[in-house]
């Protein structure tokens, strides 16, 4: 008897880099949809790294339409324990961090501030690295 191997794919460990802000093309939205689909299929998202204008995904905004995706990222972190890392220098350049480190109230819950080194480290442990640009 041979066992069927085609039914369940082997889980893949993904690292995702998001370069686009929520209001800049579809990049960030596509990233979110991909991640939801991958998790639903049993794959792992070991880290999401927000770089370039992608750091704006973490910005708490007073406009509810813009806020939509930001809240979904927060839900993703809470429900699936996905590690959401903002590039510290990209965030600082864009005025997202008032001082070095986390600025409560401006960065949405679930996100943390980190560096490019954490992206490199995550790449080393991943099966696939995906980048979503604008």
């Amino acid at each position, binding site marked *: 008897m041979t066992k069927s191997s085609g039914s369940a794919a082997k889980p893949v460990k993904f690292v995702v880099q998001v370069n686009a802000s929520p209001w800049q093309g579809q990049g960030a939205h596509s990233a979110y949809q991909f991640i939801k689909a991958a998790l639903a299929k049993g794959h792992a998202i070991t880290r999401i790294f927000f770089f370039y204008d992608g750091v704006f995904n973490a910005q708490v905004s007073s406009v509810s339409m813009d806020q939509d995706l930001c809240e979904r990222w927060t839900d993703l972190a809470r429900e699936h324990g996905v590690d959401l890392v903002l590039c510290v220098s*990209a965030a600082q350049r864009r005025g997202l961090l008032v001082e070095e480190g986390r600025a409560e109230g401006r960065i949405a819950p679930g996100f943390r501030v980190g560096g490019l*080194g954490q*992206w490199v*480290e995550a*790449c080393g442990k991943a099966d696939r*690295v995906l980048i979503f640009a604008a």
Partner: protein
Amino acid sequence: MSVTQSFLFLLRQPPYQGSRDVEMLDQILTVAAFDHIVDVLFLDDGVLHLRPGQEPERARLRPFAPQLQALMLYGVRHLAVELESLEERAMSSERLILPVQLVKRAAVADWIGQHQVVVGC
């Protein structure tokens, strides 16, 4: 210490787009600092980075070419440019601001295939 990986950065965007240049370089140099293999391929409008005679100061932009030259100092293995991208922009491979190896368009897919992590920027 994790295993050495090979990274390929595909530079496809023209220079002088805000902080993009510096952030792209930060990412490349960070990977190199972790002792991974790093190759860089200039492609499409990315070849404009290599154009001689840039005078960004006249437009009050910060020169980026000197920073790009840091790529060679920080252990980037290959710097390459796609020949057809140069030709399409009337640029000569003889006059570029960095010593780069020429890669034909037909060979780019192979180049990409030889790397474990490919980063478009």
